């Protein structure tokens, strides 16, 4: 599936709607215990994830609601069977629910891969009433994604602004994230299967400094920012307080837009459709 060759189409003249200087997508990878379960981690590690689904998710949704931030949740399908109430609530609040694998892994077998994507898409639609159009995770074939109606992905980093990816006749808009703007890199042992001894836990003040510095540059450039938080890491009280400080500071700048990912995608597809952009 991933064997098909991919080509890029950048959007060099990308500008935001009237009055907007930069767009900030706050994205939440709603892993709860699923990432740790998929890695077969021991019992106690799963409780770290359980914090996210039981406690953290609600705080992060409350925070984004109170700041009018258009949160996008990237949700593994299994969350529909673990924490369905939080997903229904996300939809009621007007947040976007996008997909993030079935159980936090992308199977290599083509048929099973399509099966996982079908399950996930159907489960999210059944739970929230809205069919997801976005997806985060590498490894899916674009044919599988297109067959389920996906329009965009947020999984690759070959540019720091939205760009198109083409594979086997299918086109996806990619909303690039940045590892430095991912809370897991700062606040999680066993990050991407690393051992604790290979890692350092940071603190909210240091992460705030990194993130606000990134924002100032992106704002000055009129660019695109994609912040990734996780229920289990950023749902902790000190981290929510840090995000509150961050959003408050960002809103002091002129023309900062906090839409959902889907809204950014609609802007790009409407004004910079793939066929008109120059192939790089």
């Amino acid at each position: 599936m991933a064997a098909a060759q991919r080509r890029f189409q950048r959007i060099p003249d990308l500008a935001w709607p009237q009055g907007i200087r930069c767009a900030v997508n706050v994205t939440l990878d709603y892993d709860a215990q699923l990432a740790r379960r998929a890695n077969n981690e021991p019992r106690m590690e799963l409780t770290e994830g359980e914090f996210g689904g039981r406690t953290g998710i609600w705080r992060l949704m409350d925070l984004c609601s109170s700041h009018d931030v258009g949160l996008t949740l990237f949700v593994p399908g299994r969350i529909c069977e673990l924490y369905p109430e939080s997903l229904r609530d996300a939809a009621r609040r007007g947040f976007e629910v996008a997909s993030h694998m079935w159980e936090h892994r992308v199977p290599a077998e083509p048929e099973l891969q399509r099966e996982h994507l079908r399950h996930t898409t159907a489960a999210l639609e059944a739970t929230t009433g809205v069919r997801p159009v976005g997806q985060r995770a590498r490894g899916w074939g674009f044919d599988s994604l297109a067959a389920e109606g996906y329009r965009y992905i947020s999984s690759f980093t070959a540019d720091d602004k939205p760009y198109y990816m083409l594979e086997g006749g299918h086109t996806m808009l990619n909303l690039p994230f940045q590892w430095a703007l991912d809370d897991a890199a700062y606040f999680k042992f066993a990050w991407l299967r690393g051992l604790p001894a290979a890692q350092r836990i940071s603190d909210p003040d240091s992460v705030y400094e990194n993130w606000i510095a990134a924002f100032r540059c992106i704002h000055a450039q009129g660019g695109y920012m994609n912040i990734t938080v996780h229920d289990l890491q950023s749902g902790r009280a000190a981290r929510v307080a840090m995000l509150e400080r961050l959003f408050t500071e960002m809103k002091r700048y002129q023309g900062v837009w906090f839409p959902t990912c889907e809204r950014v995608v609609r802007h790009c597809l409407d004004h910079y459709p793939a066929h008109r952009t120059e192939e790089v």
Partner: protein
Amino acid sequence: MPWKERYTVTDERTLENVVWPEGARCAAIVVVDPSPPCGLQGIGPRELETDAAHYGFDVALPRILDALDQRGIRATFPVPAALAEHAPALVRGIAARGHEVAAHGLRREDVSRLERHEEAWRLTRTTQVLADLLGQRPRGWYTLPRQTDAFAGGTISPHTVDLLIEAGYEYLGNSEADDIPHYWVTDPASRRAILAMPYCYHHDDQFFIEFPPIGQGGSNLERPETLFRNWRAEFDAMAGSGGQRAFGRCFTMVVHPWLNGWGQRLDVFERMLAHLRSGPPVWNPTAGECAGYWHSSYPAHATLKLAASIWADHPGSQS
């Protein structure tokens, strides 16, 4: 909640608006782990004779106890049976100063691969050793991580929690599933559960000081200010310091005397104790007192909301 065996230990949604005793905005629990550094086998004769052990027992622990006294902070000390037998006077001295002594395994060892009968025997023996020494059974049981563990959540077996319930323990000392006490369910049908106290490795000194441990590779192993900023930020968010909104939860910090006796680190610990006392009123119970309050104010039959699972086993998925 939609219960799922091997995924969940408690119910779907946390409890909001917790009311604490004494009009406090939040609770603050200090856990002092007096064991010397050890591996998965726990404490044996070799671990009890290291420099870190001698320093921890003779030099650092008295300083930690003095610092706690000075700020009027009471702490909970998880003690393995091996330590109680090795240094009975030291352990009795901790209890005599008003702190709680909880159990920490036979040797602070990894029990995850033990047969049930072997683990049950060790649990009974540990309870007995501590009860004989202190004149009363320990109320709680900890299974904190060691600095060299592959994972930082502590290790248990599939039987541990059930054995603790069977043995009549009031609480399990460390679970990461919430930042308030919560019920850890072993059988949703019968609602068999134990109260679990919150723990998070982000507030455990051993992952910030001399970490990674000497000889484990890596550099940048001394970050006391990062630890302090984590403690302070978490506590401030829970207590609502400086006018921010108060989450009103149960702040829990963990320290190890063998790491924290040294002057510059003790200074960080003392600054944090002072900070706990510097703001709005805070309730500072031992873990056992907090568990007792929880059992009477938020009993399982009234607060644990268990609903049937909606989990389905799909072909090609993990069960």
